């Protein structure tokens, strides 16, 4: 009786606190979850006290605390209402907010300043910058429909900040085979862009590989677009085959690395088709590829001169059992529709890391080779080199990373860099 009374008291405290909490703080799901965690802890402590009292009284201790907490038939309604309040606290209707932030310090032995991104001042001996402050929100509209949006407050030059709507999607999940999204999305060219999006905290390294850097920050690919995306699983047994199809306008605007001059590719509508496998026999393995096609203008020769832009990707990723192995290769092909030279520009990166407790050392090698005769990316040319460092997770939400880079550049001195980053999720 004493045991049940204490448990009931704990449950009633949890119930009343949760109901009050949900009513007054609908926009604070994280606080609610923390409250739930604390209450669960309190219940466990009460259970332990009961067990100790029972032991003193000579009664046989229960086999497990959990079994004893299963309500008898008379307590079923109390437990059901407690579950409902847990559920309500967990799935508060309205907008759920999450976020990511970062603080960086970077040093480059850069003699000729290159593009400044994320607030880094080119040509400086080293400086702090905040990078992206990322606000992520979701809202469930119905059982199958939801809204997802990602707003980034990014640092520009001289600690000025701009706001970008990185993603804004109306999603409809019909079933595992058909998931629709319409709005602004990160294109599914390869793996990296849709695995890590804009959250630096999510990725192991301090920065993205150059080829996968966002186009607005000097990257080579159309990383963002506005349109329709369809994805899902293809019935394939243990093969675990998935597809993705996108149709939209990427409207890529990319700054030149040398002088920051912004180049608008004046895109048409792209088609991006991808297939990837999650074989059941090797959990954590993903093998796939994608084909992206668009028509862009040659900004040097005028908007009427059109180029067929094709990006082909192949990737092999393994992320399980503390390992993270990322390998992606790209071929960017620009061909004049009216005939003329064709530019084939290959790029790849390989990244290997393994977690040891809270520390995850990593190594990455990246390679980009663009065509000097191409209207696009002729500022990049051949760049390749290693990066290595480590990520330390203070807890599940805060990580510190440090990274050393050595980049070999065609026609320019080699570039060495040290980057440090404190990134967090909230």
């Amino acid at each position, binding site marked *: 009786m004493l045991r049940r009374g204490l448990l009931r008291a704990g449950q009633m405290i949890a119930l009343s606190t949760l109901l009050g909490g949900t009513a007054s703080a609908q926009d604070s*799901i994280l606080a609610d979850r923390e409250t*739930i*965690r604390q*209450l*669960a802890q309190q*219940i*466990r402590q009460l259970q332990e006290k009961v067990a100790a009292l029972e032991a003193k009284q000579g009664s046989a201790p229960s*086999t*497990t605390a*959990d*079994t004893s*907490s*299963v*309500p008898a038939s008379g*307590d*079923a309604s109390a*437990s*059901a209402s*407690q*579950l*409902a309040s*847990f*559920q309500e606290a*967990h*799935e508060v209707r309205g907008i*759920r907010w*999450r976020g*990511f932030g970062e603080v960086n310090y970077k040093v480059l032995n850069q003699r000729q300043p290159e593009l400044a991104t994320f607030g880094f001042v080119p040509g400086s001996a080293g400086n702090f910058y905040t990078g992206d402050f990322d606000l*992520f929100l*979701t809202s469930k509209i119905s*059982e*199958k429909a939801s809204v*997802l949006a990602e707003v980034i407050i990014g640092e520009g030059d001289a600690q000025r900040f701009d706001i970008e709507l990185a*993603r804004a*999607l109306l*999603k409809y*999940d019909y*079933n*595992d085979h058909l998931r629709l*999204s319409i709005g602004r999305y990160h294109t599914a060219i390869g793996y990296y862009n*849709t*695995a*890590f*999006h804009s*959250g630096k905290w*999510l990725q192991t390294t301090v920065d993205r590989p150059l080829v996968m850097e966002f186009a607005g920050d000097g990257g080579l690919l159309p990383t963002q677009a506005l349109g329709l995306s369809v994805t899902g*699983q293809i019935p394939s047994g*243990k093969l*675990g085959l998935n597809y993705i199809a996108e149709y939209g306008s990427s409207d890529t605007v990319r700054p030149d690395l040398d002088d920051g001059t912004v180049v608008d590719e004046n895109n048409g509508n792209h088609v991006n088709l991808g297939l990837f496998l*999650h074989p*059941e026999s090797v*959990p*954590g393995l993903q093998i796939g590829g994608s084909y992206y096609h668009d028509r862009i203008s040659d900004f040097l020769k005028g908007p009427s001169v059109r180029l067929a832009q094709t990006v082909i990707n192949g990737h092999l990723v393994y992320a*399980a059992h*503390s390992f993270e192995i990322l390998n992606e290769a790209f071929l960017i092909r620009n061909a004049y529709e009216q005939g003329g030279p064709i530019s084939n520009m290959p790029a790849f990166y390989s990244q290997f890391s393994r*977690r040891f407790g*809270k520390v995850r050392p990593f190594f990455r090698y990246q390679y980009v080779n663009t065509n000097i005769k191409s209207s696009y990316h002729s500022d990049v040319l051949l760049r390749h080199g290693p990066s290595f460092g480590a990520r330390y*997770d203070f807890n*599940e939400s805060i990580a510190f990373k440090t990274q050393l880079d050595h980049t070999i550049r065609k026609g320019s001195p080699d570039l060495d860099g040290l980057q440090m980053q404190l990134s967090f*999720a909230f």
Partner: protein
Amino acid sequence: MFLACWSLASAPHCLAAPTHTVAVAVSPKNFVSNVTLGDLRKIFGGEKRTWPDGSHVKLFSRAPGTTERAALLKLLGKSELEYKQFWTAKVFQGDAESEPMVLPSSGMQREAVTAYPGAITLVDATDIKPGMKVLKVDGKLPDDDNYPLRP
């Protein structure tokens, strides 16, 4: 050895389940009776989000330090830290609304599978109660030899 009872399909069953075996419990309304270990990994990894009848999978888990949690982490091949970060990433990728709800007791697990037809949770086999339907994993029940789900 503890005695555990549940309703499998339509008939109730009782068996002596070995300690530290984890059962897969779903709603009695769920007509699925067997899952492969691969399917289970996809379900608890947020990859498979609907049941064959089209209803949505609703994941429930237990807190860190429990037998069920240990089995879950082993199933997914992740540490506790990696598991938390994995779900944060899933939410950010738009593939999940939130981390699976953590329930503090097996009683609440029972209520969860009763209340939600799409619910699924891992339960210590000694905590199985009437009202929970236990799924076979690769054709095996928790007391069978070579049952694959152990912490």
